[in-house]
């Protein structure tokens, strides 16, 4: 049976067509107006959660960037203060040198007492530096003035705790320097001066590189001077050897990845200039220390060594590797001499164990990239080489460990000057050097924090770019596509209108009339 085409049948179909055309056009118009692929949650339920998560991550990323900006105020303030302390200590050294020299007179010594007293006040001003009402040397007692002076006595009223900032999704960073470090109440310490971070080798776990901060799995781009370009996915790599194998396989050996001669990082070789970059706003190349361009045939990556730890082999430490086995170190502490024989040590953990066994009450501490020797009391101690192996020097711990008695030392200096005792004045200079070293180390530590902030900011900015790019992929409309679809929808709607008007004006009744 053939279909009866009635007027209501025609109008039903035509109205349906018109509605569909109009609906499509409105949908495209909404996209063109907002330039968004998704306007309502229901437009793409799968993408909703992703978009909102990106929005939340971008918001928290902005917050971390803002935290870094605020953190710089604290770290920058500490930097200025520490440099001021260093300057004051230089002035103290000039006075001490002058007053224990042959030109010193009683009058000059009396004048110097006043000068030192004024320097004490200057130091107090510096150590009581506050930023937005936060005392930067007060530990966590941020609103409490940390140093107060009563006569010749300076009292510290802060605590020993760090104030930390959140500088990334999983990272916090201490920002302050608790002022108790200057008060001589801590154990005497001798900080090691030799870099103990182990060299990178093929078995190095990628989670341990960058002093334990690890890496971000992802892809990198590689190109050389003869037009080869590669994109290498390193996501599955676990060790440095995995990286090397993956890159060398992906490039068929035209660009090769290896470890630098000094073991500090990675190295790309090939026909220069070599360019290593990120893909889709990633951060993998940067974190592997490779992001950059070489002029020649090799691109040397930056230092990405792991942190030192108890399991670190001495043979993996650049400065020790050629000096094994180690020898004997002499310690003098509390009037007793101790000999520590490190010849059987194979790891940093062995050094710790041997040291604790040989010198009860003292410790050898392993830091990220150095070691230090800590006495069990504020009394000074000495560390020296006991044999031709020069082990104390190799480990960077030859010298005197002492507490940092900033104001105590200045009072001793004043007392020496007042008494006209040049030997006493000279004696304070040893302690002054130790304090200067400590301040220098604090300046270095604080500088490291500034670098960490720079590093974190760079990572966060890259993260922001990546998040924005990913959000755009999910969220933004393809302008060209929308414009094209919109004009097609308009054409379709106009055609529907035209056909409708023609059909409604055509029937047999009209012909009969």
């Amino acid at each position: 049976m053939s279909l009866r085409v009635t007027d209501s049948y025609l109008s039903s179909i035509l109205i349906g067509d018109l509605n569909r055309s109009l609906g499509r056009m409105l949908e495209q118009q909404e996209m063109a107006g907002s330039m968004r692929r998704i306007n309502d949650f229901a437009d793409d339920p799968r993408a909703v959660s992703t978009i909102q998560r990106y929005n939340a991550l971008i918001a928290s990323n902005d917050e971390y960037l803002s935290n870094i900006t605020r953190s710089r105020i604290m770290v920058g303030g500490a930097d200025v203060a520490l440099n001021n302390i260093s300057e004051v200590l230089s002035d103290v050294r000039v006075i001490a040198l002058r007053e224990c020299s042959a030109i010193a007179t009683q009058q000059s010594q009396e004048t110097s007492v006043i000068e030192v007293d004024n320097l004490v006040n200057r130091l107090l001003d510096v150590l009581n530096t506050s930023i937005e009402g936060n005392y930067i040397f007060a530990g966590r007692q941020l609103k409490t003035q940390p140093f107060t002076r009563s006569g010749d006595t300076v009292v510290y009223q802060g605590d020993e705790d760090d104030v930390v900032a959140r500088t990334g999704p999983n990272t916090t960073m201490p920002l302050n320097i608790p002022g108790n470090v200057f008060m001589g109440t801590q154990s005497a310490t001798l900080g090691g001066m030799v870099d103990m971070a182990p060299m990178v080798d093929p078995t190095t776990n990628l989670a341990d590189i960058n002093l334990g901060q690890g890496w971000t799995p992802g892809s990198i781009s590689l190109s050389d001077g003869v037009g080869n370009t590669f994109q290498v996915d390193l996501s599955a790599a676990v060790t440095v050897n995995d990286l090397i194998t993956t890159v060398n396989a992906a490039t068929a050996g035209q660009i090769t990845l290896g470890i630098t001669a000094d073991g500090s990082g990675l190295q790309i070789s090939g026909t220069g200039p070599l360019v290593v970059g990120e893909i889709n706003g990633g951060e993998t190349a940067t974190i592997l220390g490779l992001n950059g361009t070489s002029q020649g045939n090799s691109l040397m990556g930056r230092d990405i060594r792991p942190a030192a730890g108890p399991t670190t082999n001495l043979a993996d430490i650049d400065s020790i590797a050629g000096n094994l086995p180690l020898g004997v170190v002499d310690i003098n502490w509390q009037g007793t001499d101790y000999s520590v024989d490190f010849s059987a040590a194979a790891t940093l953990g062995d050094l710790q164990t041997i040291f604790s066994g040989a010198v009860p009450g003292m410790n050898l501490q392993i830091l990220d990239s150095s070691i230090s020797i800590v006495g069990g009391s504020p009394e000074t101690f000495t560390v020296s080489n006991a044999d031709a192996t020069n082990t104390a020097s190799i480990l960077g711990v030859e010298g005197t460990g002492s507490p940092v008695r900033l104001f105590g030392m200045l009072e001793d200096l004043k007392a020496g000057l007042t008494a006209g005792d040049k030997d006493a004045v000279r004696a304070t200079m040893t302690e002054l050097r130790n304090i200067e070293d400590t301040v220098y180390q604090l300046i270095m530590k604080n500088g490291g924090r500034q670098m960490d902030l720079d590093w974190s900011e760079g990572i966060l900015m890259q993260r922001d770019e990546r998040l924005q790019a990913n959000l755009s992929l999910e969220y933004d409309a393809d302008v060209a596509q929308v414009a094209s679809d919109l004009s097609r929808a308009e054409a379709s709607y106009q055609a529907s209108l035209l056909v409708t008007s023609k059909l409604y004006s055509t029937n047999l009744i009209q012909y009969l009339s």
Partner: protein
Amino acid sequence: MPGLNSVMDTSLSALFAAQAGMATTGHNIANANTEGYSRQDVMFAARRPDILPYGALGRGVEVQGVRRIQNEFLTSNLRVQTSRLASYTEVDSTLYEVEAILGSVDNDHLGNALNNFFNSWSALGQPPINSTLKQDVVSSAISLVQDFHNINDSLDDMENNIEVSIQSEISNLNQLLDGVAEMNQQILSAEASGQPANDLRDQRDLLITKISEIAEVSVYEREDGSKDIILAGRTMVARDSVTHFASDYTKTSTGYQMTIVTQGHSQEVKLSNGKLEGLMTSRDVHIADVRDRLDALAENLVNQVNELHTQGRTNTSSGVAFFSGDSMHTIEVNPALEANPSMVATGRTSAEGDNTIALAIADLANVGIGGPNSQSVGDEYRALLTVVASKRNSYEFSVENQQNVVSTLKTKMASVSGVSLDEEGANMIKYQNSYNAAARIVSTVQKMYDTLMNMV
């Protein structure tokens, strides 16, 4: 041997038949745009012939009746599909409103408030510590609580509006049932003569189709031509007798809730499909689900923030809960903190630089208190958005699909029962020619009479 009178009689039957056909064509054309109208068709049949010795001699045509052209299967199926469409449309409309209450991708009220709340903790915990930011934390918490309350109030309003709509639809349904009963009575009277009351039947069918928009309906046609209307297994119309629906309230754990009952009884009627079912499902399933999820989110937020904040202390306080309540309706910021924001704890000690609590609460935005793999408050909220978006997307699809089904059935109905002006035009010509031809026979018979008379 038939006479001229017999021929005249035959011609007259043709004239009458052509007139009946023309009248029906006119009726069809007149009702071409009448909703629910089924085209009508005149049933012609040859009159019983005169049996003569040399054979049967035809006596013309007679009109046996006028019938309406309809397909009962299509009509019944259309009603079922119309009920489904109405149900889906109501749910879709509800989910659209729920989505609007939650915001849009660009302006996600509660999501933004959650982000602001957690970011305010992050800012408070950031050295240099600025204690005045405690006021920001309290303000952002109040704003977040207000958002929860606003959503709760909006969902309450939606539920109230749905109940108003349910009452309105019950009233509409009762009127339509009355209409069917009235039409039954009129049809019974009109068809007493034995001829079908086509136009009345069309009007009754239209009323039943309108009932199907409100609730899925079953129809039983009696031999006398009346139709019984059966809803949710209950006969609501039997000939001219009607049972009405009414609304009633039953007690629930949270208060009273409107239900549908038959008048005079309190037992709840569960209608299937149609607007009423869509409205009830919207209220009892979809809004309830969103409410449950938001209540759980609010409770989780309260518990997680309090778990941490009660570990904190300030110079003047310790162990203070930050929020109270266990749902989006009851969640409140601790009034003591509103009055004195300095009681907001940033750390586990009273040291101003102890920001461990502030940072831990800020972390709740992305990490659950149960550890890295537990669901964060933000994750819970995003899961809720995804559920609402998926449901709405699914119902949008169902509505669109069902519209196509209904449209197809209506198109088929229009093909069977609709009036075609072309067809009616052709019929008009056909009946006109038929009339002209019959009139010509009458004229010829007249001439024959004249010839005969002139012979006398």
